């Protein structure tokens, strides 16, 4: 009953429920679709840059915004509607719920971030390694999803808009320091140091290497760092949600 495989199966049930309920919620559409779309348009239109130069940042930004759009809302929403209590009365661990939230956030990001990837394929842009790009896209999506669920843990609010707003406070600065608009090597020294603490830096750097064959970090380091961030964010999300649960339920 409490074995991890069974709990994992139950987390997929949670994810399926989230997909049905939250994918079409206003904040998810705004932060996950409308916002990255307009940011991408603002980034592309009026700039005389070849498409290949734009694509790494575009893929990074789309992946980051879409994968982090569902996560911040779920727990506050479920706290408000008391459905979190309903889930916690079921024979599932808290990590099962949190992991289910990450999976639903991950799938949303993955589906949407495939669009710029398809664009790459349609334009016949030469890639260093498509499989690595696909793999890193999956890992990065999971990493950003875990970050978004982590951001919903504190403060333990029951107002989804508050959680979205606070997560935006973290997300926006990250986009600007992670080599999306300016590559890492063009950043000043202090900027490069700050950028090294962002998971998005490594994903953008990785896509830049695969599309433009130029990057700041070694390819393997980019991949390893994304995996490390994914693990840290996942564990931190579970721990922080455990810590704030009593306050959330009171």
């Amino acid at each position: 009953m409490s074995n991890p495989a069974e709990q994992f199966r139950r987390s997929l049930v949670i994810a399926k429920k989230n997909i049905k309920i939250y994918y079409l919620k206003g904040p998810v559409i705004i932060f996950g679709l409308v916002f990255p779309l307009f940011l991408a348009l603002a980034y592309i239109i009026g700039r005389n840059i070849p498409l290949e130069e734009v694509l790494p940042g575009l893929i990074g930004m789309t992946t980051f915004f879409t994968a982090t759009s569902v996560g911040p809302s779920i727990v506050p929403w479920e706290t408000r509607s008391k459905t979190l209590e309903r889930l916690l009365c079921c024979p599932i661990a808290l990590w099962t719920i949190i992991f289910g939230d990450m999976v639903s956030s991950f799938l949303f990001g993955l589906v949407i971030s495939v669009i710029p990837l398809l664009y790459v394929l349609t334009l016949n842009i030469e890639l260093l390694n498509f499989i690595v790009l696909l793999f890193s896209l999956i890992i990065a999506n999971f990493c950003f999803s875990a970050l978004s669920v982590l951001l919903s843990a504190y403060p333990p609010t029951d107002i989804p808009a508050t959680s979205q707003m606070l997560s935006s406070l973290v997300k926006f600065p990250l986009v600007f320091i992670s080599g999306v608009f300016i590559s890492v090597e063009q950043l000043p020294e202090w900027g490069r140091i700050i950028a090294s603490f962002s998971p998005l830096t490594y994903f953008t750097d990785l896509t830049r290497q695969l599309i433009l064959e130029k990057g700041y970090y070694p390819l393997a380091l980019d991949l390893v760092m994304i995996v490390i961030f994914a693990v840290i964010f996942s564990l931190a999300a579970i721990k922080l949600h455990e810590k704030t649960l009593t306050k959330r339920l009171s």
Partner: protein
Amino acid sequence: MESAITVQNLTKHFGDVTAVDHINFSVKKGEIFGFLGPNGAGKTTTIRILTGLLKPDGGTASIIGYDVLRNPIEAKQCIGVVPEVSNAYIDLSAWENLILIGRLYGVSSHKLKENTTKLLKDFGLYEVKDKLVRGFSKGMKQKLLLCMALVNDPEVLFLDEPTSGLDVESTRLLREKITQYNRDGKTVFLSTHNMEEANQLCHRIAIINHGKIAAIDTPENLRAQSMELQYIEVLFDKQVNIQEISKNPNISKASFAGNRIRVYTANPSAVIEFLVEFAKQKRLHILSLNTMMPSLEDVFIKLIKEKEVMPV
């Protein structure tokens, strides 16, 4: 008889407030156990600990032998919960809510569809099974919550104010279903304000106040413990001076209840004799005379008041 729920020295503090204060009780398998208390007495906190929503600060609690702290998943696998506030997913249909909960309990697909269909039909929700819960009335939501609590066929059912705010028909249906479920040998833990409900449904009742258990017994025994609360209601054909009746040493208190006189006594037979004699002397006719046992509500108020005046 084996215990379905065992609670020992259970304690929970919220800051300086002790919500649950070293309480002890056990609920036998197949029993309907009532949990009564005024607002803020500790009822919901106790249920939240037993259903895994809160961690106690002290003491232990187990369900079907599983410690709620050490084996929470196993303990929760045996229970169904109907909370005080509706918490079905309003953006899902009734059918989807039941399937979701069933899957979270690991009920097999075939069994789950069978249970879901049966429950929705039993509770008169089958016709609206594909409608979003958002459009359901309070009664329909409450029925759905009970369906959700029963979909895994639990050993123990926790109900927190299940009929609060419901119309008579829905209340009756829910009570019938709870009784029916209990007849199948299942255990029910019922938290309620409703004395009549507790009296009608429960085999035993615990009264909790200020986080402490004031009494645990059958409704009959609880009433019998408060025999001084039994009373006689008498109706004479003419007005009488109540002061003259109050003088009788067997009468602890006399008051008007509409046009009747209500006299409280621990010795009803002596008081009946006195009232008959009194009527003869005053040339009155007794139109009606009833001996009333104390209601559970009387016992409840007495116990709560006793605890409140007890020195700390």
